Every structure is written in C-alpha cells, then in structure tokens.
C-alpha cells in the first residue's frame, strides 16, 4: 500500500475539499468535530457521497447516498473501480509514475459491473456510476472511513479496495484529498506509533527486521524476541485455549469491548493471573487478581496523537484521587519490580524523548516543542522540521504504491432462517465505547440510559413489536435484552445496536471471527433473532 495507517491529509483541509466520499463512518456521532468540517464543506458546495447501510445524519445532506447491504463494500468499491477504468477516468499518468500492479486490478474488476454490484449490494447501478464518475473527475476528493470498513472479516480487502480507488484516480499527495481513516479513540494513532503492536516496535519498525531489533536491543539493554506476537483478537482466543496464562490489561474493559464476550469470560476464568490497571472497577476487574488505580487524562502529562498524525499535549490539571498514580509511573514500578532497570524518568517528557530518539518519524518532536508551537504532525524528522500537513506531496513514501486486487466474498455469518436479522454494532454520539466515563455523565444518561436495538418498522411489525418494547436479542453466541427503537434509518432485515452498556453487553452477540491479516473482528456483521419478552411473559 502506501505507508502507515494514518490520515494522509489533515482535518482542517476538509473545509476546502470539493468532494467527500464517506464510507463506513457515522461521522456526526463518532467524530462530531470532523463532521462539523464536513458540514461546512457541504454548505460551501462540496459534493458529499455517503455509503452506509443506515440513513445516517450525513446521508440526509448527501448528494448521493448508497445504502448498501452491510458487508458488501468490496462489491460496491470494485464496481466503482470498474466504472472508472472502463470509462477511461483513471489517472494514467499518476498510475504510470507512482504505482505498480494496476493490471491485476483492471483484471479483477473487469466483470464487476455496477449491475453485478447492484445484485449484491442493492445499490442502484446508476447511483454507483454517478458516484464513481464524480469521485474520479473531482480533483480535491477525499475518502473518509472508519470501523465500518475495518471491522469485517474482509476488512483488509475493504481498505485495499478503497486504496485502489485513491491510486487509480491520483487523489494522493494533493491538498484536501487522500485516504483518511478517522481514528476511533483519542490515541489509537499514538498507541500504534509507540509500538503497542505485536509486529511493530515504536515508529512502525518491524520486530522481524534484524536491524531494527539490534537497534532496540542496544537501546533497551535487553534481548528481544524475533517472533511476531499475538494480536488482541488472537490473544483473546488464546486465553480460552490455554495458550495465554497471564494478562496485564491497561485501560481497556476487554469484557465489554471485545467480541464474543462469553468466550472472553471463559478465557478470563481460565487464566492464572490477571492484572487490570484502570480508573474504575469494570467488567474485567471481576476476574482480576490485582487492580491498580490509575490517573485519568486530566491528572497526568503526556501526548495523544490524533487521526491526522498530530502529536498534542495532555497536561495535568488536577491531582489523581487518593493514591491513584499515572499509568507511566505504575509501569516503571512494575518493570523495576520484575528486575528490569527502567530508567528513573523525571517526567513524561523524558519518556517521549527516549522514544523519539529511536524513531525517525518523530525524531523532531518533543514536549518542549509542542508547548511552544502547538501540535506537530509526523513525519517530523528533526527539530527544525515544521511537521507534515499531508503525506505523499512528492509521490508515495516507498517509491511506488502497490495496487492490491480484491475480490468480493460474503461476511462470515449471514442471516438464515434461525437468525434472520443482520446485526451491526457501533457507537453513539452521547456515549463512548465501554462508557465507563460517559455513563457517569448526566447528559448521556438523560439521552440514552439503556441499550436499544434499532430496526425497520416492517421488521418490527412482522414480529408484533412496538417501539420501546423490551426484547431479547439472540445470536449463536449469546443473548441480551434491549429496547426496540423503530427507526427510519434502518434497512429492512438489518438491525443496529450500540456497544456501551455493561448490563446488556452487545458483545455477547458479536462474532469474533477475525480478518485474516489484521485479526480485527467482525463487529459489523452477525446474525441474530429478536424475541418479544412481553409475549413470553404472557404465555
């Protein structure tokens, strides 16, 4: 592809864009402030193309809304590629100068006509044509996507298909264009940058690369493993299988946020030792042997890196409650207690300096610089470098960018007679993930106090369900209760639930089948059925 997973362009550029292709992102709820920039651009006259199974807020102001069936993204995107290639809208000069492997994509999309895609996605062929033409013929056209693209067993193919569109139209290295994954959490980008990954050291240096390993071995004074580690999805399954015997979990409620919660529960019961480091007791601490009280973001120093690669400061405003400590201080103490000589860092700035010295991408970034200049966007290789607003301004990073041909394959678990509804999950505006923080705020409680299931009115009527009725939602992996929310946003046959509610944990339903490359689980597609609780009670 073309380099590290990060927005190629910047958030402030959105307001000047001419076309936005938003796919698998309910931006107004998950990234409200980015959505404000999109609204501003749309108001100014930029074209907005939305591809989403639900009639999300943005779809109402969109020029084109492709309401595809969940999990059929590759078919839709390959049909768009087909239109672009067959109608001669591809940027041949860009393809020749900066890319490799285009022929494979041409071959793979030869048969993927919009009519073929219509049969799979239910999106009218004409709409696919219009979207493809508009995207290909607009210069400042950006793609914006989120977990609706990645949280599938074919998530990697989805991303490749999008990247193919970007490359064949040359929408790279241009202002207000590019390929822009909007990061879900405050510091997803920063966690990846810092090497919290089974395959990368800090700064996206591969653990399998002997030169990188030698560098880190020298810096850390320790022998490092050349073997790639397990990703989170694999680790979760390995607990139940008995391959993982101890876990150290910092700042995540894995019981609530990972798919197939029943299997996680088995795993957590199965392991011998569990440490949880967090700010509240949560579902996972029920299984913990040790719980370490941590400081929250307002009580410590450090940096978060946002979606557009911008490293910004977190600053301590108040003291942590009681004896709670900043996570970085706790980690240092644990390391020393197991006999590793972790340096006596004076503050978080020294930790950052140690990391920056080992990573070319961040070498020019320091707490001092951010304090003076504000956030800095990597790559920023030296202290004089101003940071990088958009990537690939002078051609793709690694010389040429590779096309990756993709072929549509259905999601792992599709509806059938026993489980006739297709469930997707996601986040709402008012809550945030495990909601340990937002469920403690009055506004979120007033707006969304409990779990709900959005469904089409005909699906509800067929089952004799009323709006607001309490139902049981059942998948092959578990069952939970939720209230029916009859919603004009839904497609027939599809239902949607948020993931925020511990007492009715939607992840008892979700499928933990992972993408073969990334291990990212299929949160967006699984099969369920819905039963009325009230009629059961009446029987």
């Amino acid at each position: 592809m073309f380099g590290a997973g990060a927005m190629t362009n910047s958030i402030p550029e959105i307001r000047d864009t001419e076309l936005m292709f938003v796919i698998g992102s309910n931006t107004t709820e998950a990234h409200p402030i980015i959505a404000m920039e999109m609204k501003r651009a749309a108001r100014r006259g930029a074209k907005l193309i939305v591809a989403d199974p639900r009639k999300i807020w943005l779809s109402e102001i969109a020029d084109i809304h492709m309401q595809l069936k969940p999990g059929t993204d590759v078919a839709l995107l390959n049909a768009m590629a087909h239109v672009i290639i067959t109608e001669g809208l591809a940027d041949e000069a860009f393809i020749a100068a900066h890319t490799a492997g285009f022929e494979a994509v041409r071959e793979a999309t030869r048969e993927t006509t919009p009519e073929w895609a219509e049969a799979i996605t239910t999106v009218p062929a004409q709409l696919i044509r219009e979207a493809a033409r508009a995207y290909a013929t607009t210069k400042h056209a950006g793609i914006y996507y989120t977990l609706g693209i990645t949280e599938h067993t074919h998530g990697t193919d989805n991303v490749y298909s999008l990247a193919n569109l970007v490359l064949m139209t040359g929408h790279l290295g241009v202002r207000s264009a590019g390929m822009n994954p909007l990061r879900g959490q405050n510091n997803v980008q920063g966690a990846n940058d810092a090497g919290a990954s089974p395959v990368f050291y800090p700064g996206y240096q591969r653990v399998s690369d002997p030169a990188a390993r030698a560098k880190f071995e020298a810096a850390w004074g320790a022998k490092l493993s050349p073997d790639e580690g397990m990703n989170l999805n694999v680790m979760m399954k390995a607990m139940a299988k008995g391959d993982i015997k101890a876990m150290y979990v910092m700042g995540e409620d894995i019981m609530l946020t990972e798919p197939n919660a029943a299997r996680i529960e088995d795993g957590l019961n199965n392991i011998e030792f569990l440490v949880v480091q967090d700010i509240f007791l949560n579902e996972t601490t029920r299984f913990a042997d040790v719980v370490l009280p941590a400081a929250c973001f307002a009580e410590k120093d450090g940096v978060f890196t946002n979606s557009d690669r911008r490293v910004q400061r977190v600053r301590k405003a108040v003291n942590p409650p009681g004896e709670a400590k900043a996570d970085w201080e706790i980690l240092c103490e644990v390391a020393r207690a197991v006999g590793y000589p972790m340096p006596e860092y004076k503050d978080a700035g020294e930790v950052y300096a140690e990391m920056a010295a080992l990573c070319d991408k961040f070498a020019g970034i320091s707490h001092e610089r951010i304090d003076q200049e504000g956030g800095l966007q990597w790559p920023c290789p030296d202290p004089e470098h101003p940071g990088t607003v958009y990537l690939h301004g002078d051609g793709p990073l690694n010389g040429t960018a590779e096309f990756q041909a993709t072929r549509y394959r259905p999601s792992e678990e599709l509806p059938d007679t026993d489980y006739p509804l297709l469930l997707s999950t996601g986040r709402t505006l008012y809550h945030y993930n495990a909601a340990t923080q937002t469920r403690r705020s009055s506004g979120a409680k007033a707006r969304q106090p409990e779990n709900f299931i959005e469904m089409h009115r005909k699906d509800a009527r067929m089952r004799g369900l009323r709006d607001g009725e309490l139902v049981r939602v059942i998948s092959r992996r578990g069952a939970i209760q939720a209230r029916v929310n009859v919603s004009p946003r839904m497609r027939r046959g599809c239902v949607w639930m948020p993931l925020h509610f511990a007492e009715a944990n939607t992840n008892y339903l979700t499928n933990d089948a992972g993408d073969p490359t990334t291990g990212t689980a299929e949160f967006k597609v699984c099969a369920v059925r819905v039963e009325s609780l009230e009629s059961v009670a009446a029987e």
Partner: protein
Amino acid sequence: MSDNDIKLEIDGREVEVPAGSTVLDAARKLDIEIPTLCMDDRVDPAGCCRMCLVEVEGQRRLHPSCAYPAAEGQKVATHNDRIDRHRKGLLSLYKADHELDQHGRPVSRGVHNRLADYLDTYGTGPALTPVDAPRVARSESLETNPYIQFDPESCVVCGLCVRYCDEVEAVSAISLVGRGSGTTIGTADQRSLLDTSCELCGGCIAVCPTGAMTEKPSVTRLPQLQPPKAPTSKVRTTCNFCGVGCQLDLHTEGDQVVRVTSPKPGTTLNDGNLCVKGRFSYEFIHHDERLTQPLVRGEDGQLHPTTWEVAIQRVADGLRQVEARHGTDALGFVSSSRCTGEENYLMQKLSRAAFGTNNCHQCAAT
C-alpha cells in the same frame, strides 16, 4: 500582495486585504478594536447588534463593519463623535433591556459578559426606563436537559447562538421565537432541548456574548453569589474521547475541574468547537467510584485494598511465576489507545524488554 487584493484606508491608515474581506477584517488587520456582540468568524455576518458601526466616506448612514464589504479606495472611520453617540445610545437600550446586579451592572453568570465590558469602555447615553419585555424561557420543570440553561433577561437577542446551531452544528435546534420586544431564544413549541434535534454540543454557550446561555453545573457557582472556594486556573490539554484531538481548556477550582471550554476559534484544529462529550462529559473525573487504592484478591475471592508495595510485588511475582511455568509467550500485554503515547511506549517496553515477548497490542482496530 496578490492581484485581487484591495487597498483601503481605515482611520487614516492604509491596509491591504484579500477580495471578499469585510471592513471589520481590514480593521482587525490594523489591530483596530471594534466592539461586536453578534459576530463570529464561523458564521455568516448578520450585522444585527449594531455595535460595530463605522462611518464609510460617501455613505449617508453608519454601517455594520462585520457585514460591509471592503472596497478599493474606501475611507472608513471607526471612532468619531457620531459613532460614539450612536454606540452610547445603543448601549443605553441594551442596558435597559438587561438584568442588572445590585451595582447596576449587567449580571454575569460565571462567564465573561461582553456587554458589561462595552458599558465600561464606551459608556452609555441617557439612562432609560427598564424594558418590561414579556420574554419567556422554557419552564424549568420541562427543560430537563442537564447542561444548557437559558436566561432571557441576560439575552440581547443577537441570535448568534441560533446561527451557530444552524450554520456550524447544523442541527437547528433553537430559533428566535416570539415577536417585537418579546422576541427570545426558544425551541419548537418551547419543548425541552432533549426533545429537539439538539446534540447538547454547548456551542450556544460558547458563542453567547452575555452569558444568557450558560452551563447548568456552573450556574450553581455564580461568582457574585458564591465566590470560588479555591484558586482558579486554566490548563490546556487534549480531549480524551475520540480521535479528532480537540484542544480543551480545563478550568479548575482548587483540585476540581469545574468547566471545560474550547480555545478561541481559529487557534486550534477544533476551531472553537466541541461536542457534548468534550464539553460536558467530565463528571467522571471526580466521580466517587474512582479507584483510589490498589486492590488485591484475597483468599476469600474478594478484592481488598492494599499498599502500592504489596500490589506491585504481587504483579511482579504473578507475572514471573506464570513465565516460569509456561514460558514468556504465555503472557499477554494489553496496552490502551486511551492512555498517552509515553504509556504505550512503556507498556510495550515492559512486554518486550522486561519479559521478551511481542504479545503486546491494544484495542485499536482501524
């Protein structure tokens, strides 16, 4: 200077601005102070508060500089007797229509009241009898939203909140309702904000020049009624919710975060905007369920408070014992995209350097 720049003169000083600029933009470029109430760069100018009136040579009337286009060769005055007289008259009207405190100044609800500033700076004309306009707020028993409070007596009906809600947040939850001197800010049928399209972003509070729109939590701490109990300060930080990376100012009183605001528009990537989570979801910081001491599971299967020494030793022993029994790759380290970059760095360093395993990941799936 590009080809389409415009050259004009303000208060006798020459200035060049790009085509499409307003007289106010040009004045700002010269650092000439012009008062405004209804103006914000994020919305189209409305020119309705009339505070920014200027005299343009050749024009009979005074014009609002926020909405008046700059033109080649224009000559503008921002301060003279005529403008002064007009402004004083306007301020008299605003004052007569505003709730005043015991010292006869506009009330301040824990936030900066720009009207009070302007009364101090520019003074008023003749004192007018207070206007008894029949303005209504949504009834308190109906308005159950926990965050946003509207006080019609402090409102100058500049409508900036309404325009922000429409043009920036694009939800159009609030609107000007009523007519004449009874015009006020309301919702459809004066419903609770919770029953409208409102997303509780609090932008109306942030743009309000007089503090008529305020945060409910801070209203309980009106400075003139209840001075801050402890020293106050402001700390710039990054929001801990989604991946946009909005900059926040945490306002503290002693060891408590009491309010969250955005830095000024145009200074950070969020351009003065925040969402409901960033602005209001800070109650968790001081929640009484926060963990305050280390806990270890005892023989009875329950978690019990303990000291840091004991807890850290237990962690070290537990991990080392599993490593000894099952090998280092039987350990898993789950880092967090909610924690800082430094903390993620240290977690993977712990896993790799102290234990020698690459089983280190976090919940990031994008």
